[in-house]
């Protein structure tokens, strides 16, 4: 059900991905699997969230795991979240965890 509504497009050179749809525990495994190559990459990682309509605590957890995988080589950049997604990110303290929320690359 929910699965169909979620899309992951990795950007060339593994510098990030564009996510679309509603991200929740129903798609956590699928997301993790599709983002797997990014866990091996180093440097900044840009996640385009402009087409993400919903995030939950499992999404935050996934972003934190991606950030951890950077091991100080760079940050996870959360690009163009919709206002309510930005609010969840802020409330979750993603900034304190080393990520950046940005409206522009």
């Amino acid at each position, binding site marked *: *059900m*929910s*699965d169909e*509504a979620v899309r992951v497009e990795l950007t060339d050179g593994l510098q990030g991905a564009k996510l679309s749809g*509603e991200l*929740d*525990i*129903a798609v956590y495994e699928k997301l993790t699997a599709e983002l797997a190559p990014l866990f091996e990459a180093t440097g900044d990682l840009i996640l385009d969230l402009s087409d993400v309509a*919903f995030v*939950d*605590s*499992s999404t*935050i*957890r*996934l*972003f*934190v*795991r991606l950030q*951890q995988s950077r091991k100080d080589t760079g940050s996870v950049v959360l690009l163009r979240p919709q*206002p*309510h997604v930005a*609010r*969840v990110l802020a*409330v*979750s303290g993603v900034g304190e*965890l080393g990520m950046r929320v940005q409206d522009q690359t």
Partner: protein
Amino acid sequence: MSDPTLRIVFPADAAELRDVRHRIAAWAAPYLSASDVEDLKLAVTEACANAVQHSGTQEIRVTISLDGSCVEVVVEDDGVYQMHLSGVAGDPGAHRGLILMAAMVDDLSLQRGTEKRTGTRVRLVKCPA
């Protein structure tokens, strides 16, 4: 006026959550701002996700109704509250569900299910700004 209370009963399956929060959002839309509806969607999703992941329940019951000018959602399962956190070692982003729920609504109550009296009940109240 007809009683607008809506009751949704569904199997404890993560794939149901999307539909549940959409129905909650549609119900609440006349009473709350768009931003408050988003907050409520997240809180309800987290409460249901906990029932799916931790309670061992077969079904989940969600009730949405008005409490004065506020919207009240009750999420009930038939399980036992798990005291012990489980999860992956040293994952600093884990276990944020309860904190997110608390941040998203005006009033949060959690009555836990025990072996003696099974069924955890989470009550979420969102009031117009």
